[in-house]
């Protein structure tokens, strides 16, 4: 029995012009988003390589590691990030690393190329979140009340058909008919990635697979919501209107309001305030040290230039280390305060936003793509780790660390020895670890769970509503 109903549902949906048109549009969009993602990735890789090269090239011709004041590192583009952009275009991609001192990322893509900020990107997240949810509504809004209007519900139930079987057939049938065909353009998209030579590791394919799974789950949420509303409404036009309102709420209102409510409820000290406090403190520390420096007397009777220099370096290093330690403690505190508040704010915002399946979906896939808010933190962490390597390297080369207000100019006028240019490639290279499969899965698991919960709730909602539905 259920089989006939599923079969009929498949045939009815797939045979309709409505399906041909909308499926065509959705397929086009999905394939387009893969294509754009791949092209975008290539552009970003080129830019990234050029920036790295330029950074090293600027050191060419230098003959002294002392002259290397800072080193720039860049967040490498990730193939998945172009499919699910998340915050990857919003956060800073470049960090100037000094031997010591705090790091801050700058040059977000939207800041560099505001042209892309005007209309944003057409990524998989967007297509699923906005277009496919609309697609689900469009097909399921009259799932029940439309049949009633056509009289087929009465005719069906003049047969010995149990209602529960009917609604189950309806739900599974429409899901099969609508969701499974979507796999075709997605597969084409994947082939496109291969053809366009986007290097994807096995883990990345697995993550992409999970993104698709989350997408289909999200599609299921909107499908079951639509069937649910359809089995509550008497007329299909009112069901559609109701669903449109729900869609607007879920896609547009709830997520944004959640963030704004959280912004209001939890105060986070602004970056400027903190920066200014740090500046002032650092300035104060430096003023103290200034007197110390002025008071420095080279060991008496030293003739050996090298020795004097080494002594002085040691002295400078010592006060700089002390200053650095104090500064680190101070800004560590401030940062921690801000981060804690930020964390609370984020928890509130995201917690509220998850009332909307669209927000939940978006969070799940950005976690899987590695473009969630944690990308920012991971990048910072990687940068801090790199800073240590860099500092060790510079220490070994120059015997001291620059940065944090101290700049070294060494102008040596001597010896006629032709100075050897430094080899910039000796610098340790910054590697940004690709997010591990396990980590991203764990991060996205709660959201996938919530999506499942939504599906289950509305599945049973439709089931129960239909059992009480008046088929006349």
């Amino acid at each position, binding site marked *: 029995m259920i089989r006939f109903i599923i079969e009929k549902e498949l045939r009815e949906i797939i045979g309709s012009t409505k399906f041909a048109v909308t499926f065509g549009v959705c397929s086009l969009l999905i394939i387009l988003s893969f294509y754009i993602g791949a092209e975008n990735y290539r552009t970003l890789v080129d830019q990234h390589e050029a920036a790295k090269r330029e950074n090293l090239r600027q050191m060419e011709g230098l003959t002294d590691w002392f002259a290397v004041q800072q080193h720039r590192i860049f967040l490498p583009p990730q193939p998945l990030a172009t499919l699910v952009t998340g915050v990857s275009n919003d956060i800073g991609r470049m960090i100037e690393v000094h031997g010591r001192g705090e790091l801050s990322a700058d040059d977000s893509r*939207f*800041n560099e190329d505001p042209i892309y900020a005007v209309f*944003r990107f057409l990524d998989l997240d967007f297509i699923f979140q906005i*277009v496919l949810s609309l697609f689900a509504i469009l097909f399921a809004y009259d799932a029940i009340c439309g049949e009633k209007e056509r009289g087929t519900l009465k005719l069906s139930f003049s047969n010995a058909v149990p209602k529960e079987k009917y609604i189950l057939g309806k739900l599974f049938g429409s899901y099969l008919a609508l969701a499974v065909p979507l796999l075709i353009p997605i597969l084409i998209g994947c082939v496109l990635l291969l053809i366009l030579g986007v290097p994807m590791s096995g883990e990345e394919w697995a993550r992409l697979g999970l993104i698709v799974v989350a997408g289909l789950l999200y599609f299921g949420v909107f499908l079951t919501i639509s069937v649910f509303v359809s089995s509550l409404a008497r007329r299909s036009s009112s069901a559609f*209107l109701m669903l449109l309102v729900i869609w607007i709420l879920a896609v547009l209102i709830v997520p944004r309001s959640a963030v704004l409510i959280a912004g209001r409820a939890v105060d986070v000290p602004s970056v400027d305030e903190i920066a200014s406090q740090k500046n*002032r403190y650092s300035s104060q520390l430096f003023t103290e040290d200034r007197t110390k420096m002025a008071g420095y007397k080279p060991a008496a009777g030293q003739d050996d230039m090298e020795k004097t220099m080494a002594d002085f370096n040691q002295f400078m290093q010592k006060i700089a280390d002390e200053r650095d330690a104090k500064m680190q403690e101070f800004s560590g505190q401030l940062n921690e305060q801000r981060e804690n508040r930020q964390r609370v704010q984020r928890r509130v915002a995201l917690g509220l936003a998850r009332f909307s399946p669209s927000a939940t979906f978006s969070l799940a896939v950005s976690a899987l793509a590695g473009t969630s808010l944690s990308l920012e933190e991971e990048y910072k962490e990687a940068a801090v780790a790199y800073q240590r390597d860099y500092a060790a390297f510079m220490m070994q080369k120059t015997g001291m660390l620059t940065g944090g207000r101290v700049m070294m100019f060494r102008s040596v006028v001597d010896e006629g020895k032709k100075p050897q240019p430094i080899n910039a490639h000796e610098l340790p290279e910054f590697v940004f670890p690709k997010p591990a499969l396990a980590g991203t899965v764990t991060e996205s698991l709660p959201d996938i769970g919530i999506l499942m919960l939504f599906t289950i709730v509305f599945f049973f909602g439709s089931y129960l509503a239909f059992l009480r539905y008046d088929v006349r």
Partner: protein
Amino acid sequence: MFATLLQKELKSILLSPKFPATFAVCAGLLILSISIGIHEYQVTTRQYETATQMVTQELREQAHWSGVNNRTYRKPDPMQIFVSGVSNDIGRWSGVSQFEPVKLRHSAYSDDAIFAIFRFIDFGFIVQVILSLFAFLFTYDAINGERESGTLALTFSHPIPRTTYLLAKIAGSWLGLVIPLLLPVTVGVLLLVLFRIPFEASHWMKLGGLLGVSMLYFSFFVTLGVCISSLTRRSNVSFLLCLVAWVFLILIVPRVGVIIAGQAVPVPTVAEIEAQQDAYSKDKNEQHMKSMEAKFRDREALMSGMTKEQREQYENDHMWSWMEENDADQKQITKDIEAQGVKLQEDLRNRKALQERLAFSLSRFSPASAYQLAVMSIAGTDITLKSRYEDGLRSYRTILNAFTEKKQKETGDVGGIRITMDSEKGMSISAPKENGTLDLTDMPQFAPPANASVMPVTDIGILVFAILAAFGGAIAGFLRYDMRS
């Protein structure tokens, strides 16, 4: 006649269940967005003020003019409440000092990425996305729905001109949609006044411009909905067509336009430009070296037959001109290199401008992007916001640098600690004493670039053209419409 038809149209819209739903959603959204916008504006203004104060404070505590590490923040504009545009995406401040070039950095979204996740929802967005959807919802069955219910044939059993009927249809739906737009906007305006948002005459004019363009925009969607309805026989077909049109016009065309332009007109990155510049100057210098060598060889060759005295004499005679020649060469090279730098930058700008132009022209195939670009440029939050600010900051930087230099000379201090090592004199350290606080009274202040409100003539033209085209389509479809149900 027209009045009767219009009345019926309005009545049927106002009484339909669609209306309260539309009205509630629009009113809720618009008022929400405006009040959020007001809040955001207040917060960013406060942030801006504190930040600016802090900078001044820090400056005052500085000891030397040379160390002046000035930061200038972008001033929030109240028009942001209605159309946020790129204002959250581009940097909030730039350093303005001798040591660094002007560059807006740290966008609001990059500082607090949480707000970037779900973006901002403003008036422009609501009109562009939601109101257009509702416009379709009200008009997709304007003609064919009446045919299906048989009222069309009934109506035209009376002597009514078709164009009158069509006009009444469009006008009725239009009026039905204006209410959900204008009432909440009025409330929003009251909120502006209530919260004392500094709205000057120019802002009110801009707001008027926004509303005008918005009306044009949804007139287009109303007309297009009626057009689609009068070109199809069944309302569920026109419904589908409207939805597909909506997805394309609002979601696809604008984005694809930008992406195509990005592919078609590649813009070199800053890094690439710098590399080119470097290669050029290296090349020039090498050439110079070569020509110098060649000249030396020539001179040597000329002098080869001379005795030592003659040679010295010759050298002495020519030394000056040689040096001049050399100097001129050197200068020429520097000039060339600089010119090349300017040229490369110019090229970069031009290419960027070309890319933007292409992107926007392509995306303007959709009236939705024409609308978006129009409201952004009216509100002054369009893509040129960044370059306008940076240009303003650059000229400010020149003024400020001149000022600090002058001050430096006056106070005779370059600041900083200087440690000098000399093989003869040994090491000496000079750490000038504090100068106390700086007097900032006559320091030049940055004036935010005047928000040149350009009337987006092209975009308005596009909207008007689109309305006329849709209207033409509607008339063509309806004059030949088969009324039988």
